[in-house]
């Protein structure tokens, strides 16, 4: 399989078009199943009552907010190393979704924090680094928006992305470094999770749904960006004239 084949915009565009409905449908089904488990099947938490159910949105959003930044950095590195235009398009297409998930994680965290901690916001390490992550997303998007030449915008954004990715591990390990209000991570790979099985399933299914949603949205955005950038090329003209 030749990867460069898929890196060409004229191959990417129809492929992405075929994949989007599948990922969108998967996202819908998984979100429906996850929300059903989260709100009707999972038992009430004995300490936090019903309020804990916001984790079915909060935790997947927080995971995705960090993960998307790493994926953006991955595409940026690939783009800088192999000089492939489509990698930059992918990195750029992911940024708004990542910022959205970061915002959702902060927002739902505040909603959870008010009844549990008695405060909408505390200056705890994890909250603060999530806020900084939001600033990093905004910074990358603002830089790319300020540059008119797409080639320069891509490269400048990619560099900033790679510099910022140092922040993502700090977020993840800050729980261990600083001992603060935020409860420790409840899911880990090395020991049994400290929550009921159904809660865990609900959360994992919601995380998968968020994943599928991200892929679908990012591909759709990448398609639009590709079309905009390749407007001079032969295949775009043929495709646009072919469709009524």
């Amino acid at each position: 399989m030749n990867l460069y084949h898929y890196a060409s915009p004229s191959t990417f565009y129809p492929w992405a078009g075929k994949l989007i409905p599948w990922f969108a449908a998967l996202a819908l089904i998984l979100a429906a199943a996850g929300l059903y488990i989260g709100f009707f099947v999972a038992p009430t938490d004995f300490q936090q009552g019903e309020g804990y159910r916001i984790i079915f949105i909060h935790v997947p959003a927080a995971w995705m907010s960090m993960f998307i930044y790493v994926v953006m950095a991955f595409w940026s590195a690939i783009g800088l190393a192999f000089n492939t235009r489509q990698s930059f398009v992918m990195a750029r297409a992911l940024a708004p979704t990542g910022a959205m998930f970061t915002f959702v994680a902060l927002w739902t965290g505040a909603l959870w924090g008010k009844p549990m901690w008695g405060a909408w916001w505390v200056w705890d390490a994890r909250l603060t680094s999530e806020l900084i992550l939001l600033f990093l997303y905004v910074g990358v998007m603002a830089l790319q928006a300020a540059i008119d030449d797409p080639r320069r915008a891509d490269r400048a954004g990619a560099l900033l992305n790679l510099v910022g990715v140092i922040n993502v591990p700090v977020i993840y390990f800050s729980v261990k470094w600083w001992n603060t209000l935020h409860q420790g991570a409840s899911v880990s790979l090395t020991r049994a999770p400290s929550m009921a099985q159904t809660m865990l399933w609900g959360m994992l299914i919601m995380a998968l749904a968020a994943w599928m949603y991200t892929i679908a949205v990012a591909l759709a955005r990448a398609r639009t960006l590709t079309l905009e950038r390749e407007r001079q090329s032969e295949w775009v003209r043929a495709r646009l004239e072919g469709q009524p």
Partner: protein
Amino acid sequence: MLRFLFTVVRRDVLLAARRRGDWLTAQFFFVIVVSMFPLGIGPEPGMLRTIGPGVVWVAALLASLLSLDRLFADDYRDGSLEQAMLSPCPMALLTLGKAIAHWVINGIPLLLIAPLLGIQFNLPAAALWILVLSLAIGTPILSLLGSIGAALTLGLRGGGALVTLLIMPLYVPALIFGAGAVEGVLSGSGSEAHLSLLGAFLVLSLLLAPWVSAMALKVSVE
């Protein structure tokens, strides 16, 4: 190689020495921002002592950002930046030299003013020393990371505000460790841990920042 670095630093410092108004603005900006806080918060000594280290550090971040957008811009406008980029020496040395010059022009005066501002905030003598020491380790980080932002936003509209948006989040560790060191003296828990982490961050940015901002310059100028 070292001569090239030295030449870059010397040229920038000379230019700044001949245009004193430019760099004095940033220094007075620092003093004025710090002096505004007691006026806004109130002259209560205990309160001022608590917020003092943080206020001085945040003002130092702002002052270094204020002078950053001109780091490469003047040379870019008159064409000497492109000439310097054509030289056979590695470009990371050019950006390193620029960052060092920025620190000499903007960082060192901050170190000299900071104790005076610390006295205004009722800091004890031990804390003043640590404040100067933490700024001495921390301000080179600001210049180094800032050079990345200056290179990325070279020649863009709204460059100054954009640099702040890009670079401020990256300054966060320096701010936390720097202000934390002084806080440690005030609370009696010691400052060695914070200063060591600040030093580690300086080494990391010294290793990576000149290289990244050289790549950013290439992207921006080509």
